[in-house]
C-alpha cells in the first residue's frame, strides 16, 4: 500500500485497553494535512482514549497507527512527539512546580519551523504578562492558552487537542476558535476531541462520531444540516 504524503495520521483497527477493560474496539481514522477533524461523542465513548492511544499513553494497544507514513506501534512513548505530534490533555497538564515560561519551554523542539517565543506571546499576550507566575496560578482560560502555546512552541504540526473549551467563558472559547482557524490556515493538522458542538461545527472539516469505543458515523462539514437528526440521537444535544 503506497503512502499518501498528505495523510498525516492513519489509524487502522485500533484496540486499546486500560488494565482489563477494553476501551477502543477497532477504530479507523484518517486525517489529512491541514484538516481539522473532530471526535464527537458522549463522555466515556473513548475519544480521550483515542488521543492517548496515539501518544502511547494507554496500557495495551493493537492495530496500526501511522504518523507521517511511519508506524508508531512499537515506538517508545518519548519518541512519538518527535514525529511532530503535540498533545494537549483534557486536564491541561500545566505543571505547578514550573513558571509559565518554564511550562512554555518544557517540550523539546520537535521541528525546525516552530513558533518563536515572540510569535507565541503575540498570539497570547496574557502569557507574556504572566510569564514569571507559577503555572497553576493562571485562570482556566490562560492555562488552556498555555497548554496550547506549549505545543505550538515545540513545532508540532499535528495537534491532538482534548476538550480545550471545557469550562471556559464564551469570550475565551471565541478566542480559541480564532486561534484554531489561524493554525489551520497555516497548514497545521488538528484532531479535536470536543463536547461543545457549537464550537466545533463552524471550524471543522469532518466529524467522527464515537460510541462505546467504536466510530459509528463520519460526517462531512457540508452534511451537518442534512444529518442533524442523526447527530442529535448520538450526542443528545
Amino acid at each position, binding site marked *: 500500500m503506497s503512502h499518501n504524503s498528505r495523510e498525516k495520521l492513519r489509524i487502522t483497527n485500533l484496540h486499546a485497553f486500560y488494565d482489563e477493560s477494553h476501551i477502543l474496539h477497532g477504530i479507523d481514522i484518517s486525517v489529512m494535512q491541514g484538516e481539522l477533524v473532530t471526535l464527537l461523542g458522549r463522555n466515556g465513548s473513548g475519544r480521550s482514549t483515542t488521543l492517548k492511544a496515539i501518544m502511547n499513553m494507554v496500557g495495551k494497544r493493537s492495530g496500526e497507527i501511522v504518523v507521517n507514513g511511519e508506524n508508531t506501534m512499537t515506538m517508545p512513548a*518519548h519518541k*512519538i512527539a518527535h514525529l511532530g505530534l503535540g498533545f494537549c*490533555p483534557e486536564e491541561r497538564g500545566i505543571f*505547578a*512546580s514550573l513558571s509559565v515560561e518554564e511550562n512554555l519551554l*518544557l*517540550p523539546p523542539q*520537535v521541528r525546525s519551523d516552530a513558533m518563536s517565543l515572540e510569535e507565541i506571546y503575540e498570539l497570547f499576550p496574557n502569557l507574556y504578562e504572566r510569564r514569571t507566575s507559577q503555572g497553576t496560578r493562571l485562570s482556566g482560560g490562560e492555562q488552556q492558552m498555555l497548554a496550547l502555546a506549549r505545543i505550538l512552541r*515545540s513545532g508540532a504540526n499535528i495537534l491532538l487537542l482534548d476538550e480545550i473549551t471545557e469550562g471556559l467563558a464564551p469570550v475565551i472559547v471565541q478566542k480559541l476558535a480564532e486561534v484554531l482557524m489561524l493554525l489551520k490556515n497555516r497548514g497545521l493538522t488538528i484532531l479535536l476531541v470536543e463536547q461543545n458542538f457549537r464550537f466545533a461545527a463552524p471550524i471543522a472539516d469532518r466529524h467522527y462520531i464515537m460510541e462505546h469505543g467504536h466510530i459509528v458515523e463520519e460526517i462531512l462539514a457540508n452534511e451537518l444540516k442534512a444529518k442533524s437528526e442523526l447527530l442529535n440521537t448520538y450526542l443528545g444535544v
Partner: protein
Amino acid sequence: MATFLGINFFALFGQLLIGLINGSFYALLSLGLAIIFGLLRIINFAQGAMYMLGAFVALLGFKYMGMNYWVALLVVPIIVGLIGILIQRFLIRPIVNEDHLYSLLLTFGLALMIQGIFTHWFGSSGQSYPVPEALKGGMRLPFMYLPNYRAWIIVVSVLVCFSTWWMIEKTKLGVYLRAGTENPQLLQAFGINVPLIVTLTFGFGVGLAGFAGVMAAPVYSVSPDMGSNILIIVFAIVVIGGMGSIGGAILTGLGMGIVEGLTKYFYPEASATVIFLVMVIVLMIKPSGLFGKNA
C-alpha cells in the same frame, strides 16, 4: 573567660561543631533520599548501605591501590552511582508499576545483604582512614580549636548541597526533574525520555551517598554498620523536612545536626532521641513536614 552565665563556651562550641559536621552528613544523605523520593516515589532503604559502600571503596582503594583521598572523592561517587544505576535498571524498574511497598522491601533487603557481605568480609569492627595531608592540622578560634578537615566537611557539604539545589531549581535539567516529579506520563508525551532521567536521578542520589561516605571515612570509623546507624536518623530528617522537598532536606539536615549538638551540651541524656522527638512534634503540627507541600 571560657564560661559566662554558667555556660562553658569551649564545650558548647565543641558540641556545636560536632553537630554541624553530623548535620552535613545528614544533609547530604537526606538530599539524596529526597531527590530519589521526589522522582521515583521510592523510599530508598539502601541509601545507608551506599554511604557505607562509598567509605569502603575509598578505604579499599587506598589500601590496595594507593588511591588518594582526592581521587577517591571524585571516583568513588561515580562508582557508587553506577552501582545505583544498575540496581535501578535491573531490580527496581521491573517492579516500578507494583505497590511502592515492594521497592521499599527490595531496597531494605539489598541494604541488609550488602551490609551482611561486608561484615562477612571485613568483620564488624571499624577501620580508620587517614586524613589527607593537605587538611591536617587546624585553626585556633577564640572559643575553640577547629580541625581543618572538619571545616572542610562543612564547607564542601554545603557547597555540594547548594549546587544540587541550584541545578534542580535553575537549570533545564532541573525543569525536567520537577516536571517528571509532577506528571511523568505527560513529560514523556512531550518527547522526553523519562525512564532515562529516572535512572540517572537514582544514580545521582545514590552517588551523593557515596560522596558522603568518602567525606566520612577520615572522621568516623569505616565499618559495615555505619550506614544503618545513620539511616534511621536521616529518615527522621526527611520526614521533618517534608518528603521530597529538596531545600527542606538540606536545611533540616544541617538544622537537626545543630539541635543534636546543642542537646548534647545542655541535656546529653536526650541527644540520641531529640531528633525523633522533633519528628513527632512536627508530624503532630504539620504532617507534611516543615517544607513539604500539603498533600
